[in-house]
């Protein structure tokens, strides 16, 4: 009985994870500019991974395995947060350059 509940939980959580990955991809296709696309990519994918990790927790046999799963999610979260911040700054650099390129070249660059 417990294992059936665990299995149902796994199926639901992994499906939710897949849905988030789908949402991220759709957002990537449909959002208008670079910032929103980056947002769709990071948030949806991290949530997707989180839900998949959550779903795999009942399937793992031992506590140490479950802890390692959560550690993996935490590491990926940390890395994604840092990377997306750095990418966002790079996007801002590109947009700032585009703005100063199209404006009056006599103006001082900000």
């Amino acid at each position, binding site marked *: 009985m417990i294992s059936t509940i665990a299995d149902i939980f796994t199926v639901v959580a992994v499906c939710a994870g897949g849905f988030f990955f789908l949402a991220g991809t759709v957002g990537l296709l449909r959002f208008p500019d670079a910032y929103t696309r980056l947002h769709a990519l990071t948030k949806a994918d991290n949530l997707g991974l989180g839900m998949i990790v959550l779903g795999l927790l009942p399937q793992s046999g031992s506590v140490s395995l479950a802890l390692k799963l959560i550690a993996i999610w935490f*590491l990926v979260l*940390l*890395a994604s947060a*840092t990377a997306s911040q*750095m990418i966002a700054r790079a996007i801002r650099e590109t947009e700032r350059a585009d703005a100063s390129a199209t404006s009056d070249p006599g103006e001082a660059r900000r």
Partner: protein
Amino acid sequence: MSVLLNVALVLLFIGLAAWTVFARDTFASVAGFIPYGLLLTAVWLRLVAVDVAITEAAIGAGLTGALLVGAAARLRATEARTNRMRPGAWTRVLAAIGSIVVAGFVAACVLLLPEATPTLAPAVMENIHTTGVGNPITAVLLSFRAMDTLLEAIVLAFGLLGVWSLAPDRAWGGRPSLQPIAEPNSILAHFARMLPPIGIVIGVYILWYGADHPGGKFQGATILAAMWLLAMMAGLADVPRVGRIALRFWLVAGPLVFIAVGFAGAALADAFLGYPEGRAKLWIVAIEFALMPSLALTLGLLLAGAPQRALQK
């Protein structure tokens, strides 16, 4: 269903490889290479070769990716010029034909292997109890063929020497330079403060776990080297001067311990790199612990590159 998954993996694989080859600039190629390493790990897992998978994850996805990023950054200055010197059409056609012939030959060899492939695996499993470790790969690398591992460690040190030899004369023994240093409070510095403690624990864990399960000193050393490089890239630690005696001592300490164990084995067990009866695991663990710092230092310095800054007082 699993066939479908394999097909999907192969298609993704070929797509990434095509991207890496046909991309217009080196940066885009490297963008394809890092996922390529990750995907290769997945393929090894599908083939249930777990030790190879963990090594691929460490070296292929992690270290080689960072190495290529550094190389692409260094090549940026001359890239425009090299792109103009593309080889002619005939050269490219001949190269393509050559590659296809070689790939086809290798595929034919693999597909035509006899059903019961000749293998030494049963012999290994019969004798593994003499080594005291549970992982057959560790047993082969550090006991049955320990000589090969010793020579590999020495070859790595020679590789580092080769990288150092690329330094300009006035910078010999100086510090390698790692791209513009980020400000001390930037997001990268924050990341470099949070990840290394966790990474070091995981690295030592993988080393310890490698005795009985997939893992081992090489993968653990790669993780340690990566954490050190992260701290250097974020400006939290300066790159060491490669002329320092202490640094050079630590670089060779691992192989020296290995050689010392070999001679001790000649005295105690009648063979170079032989282990005394029943105490094999102790010696193996000692070698692994001695090799790991040297390996981590070597890998980190390989990525840091040739010294660029002259000796500083």
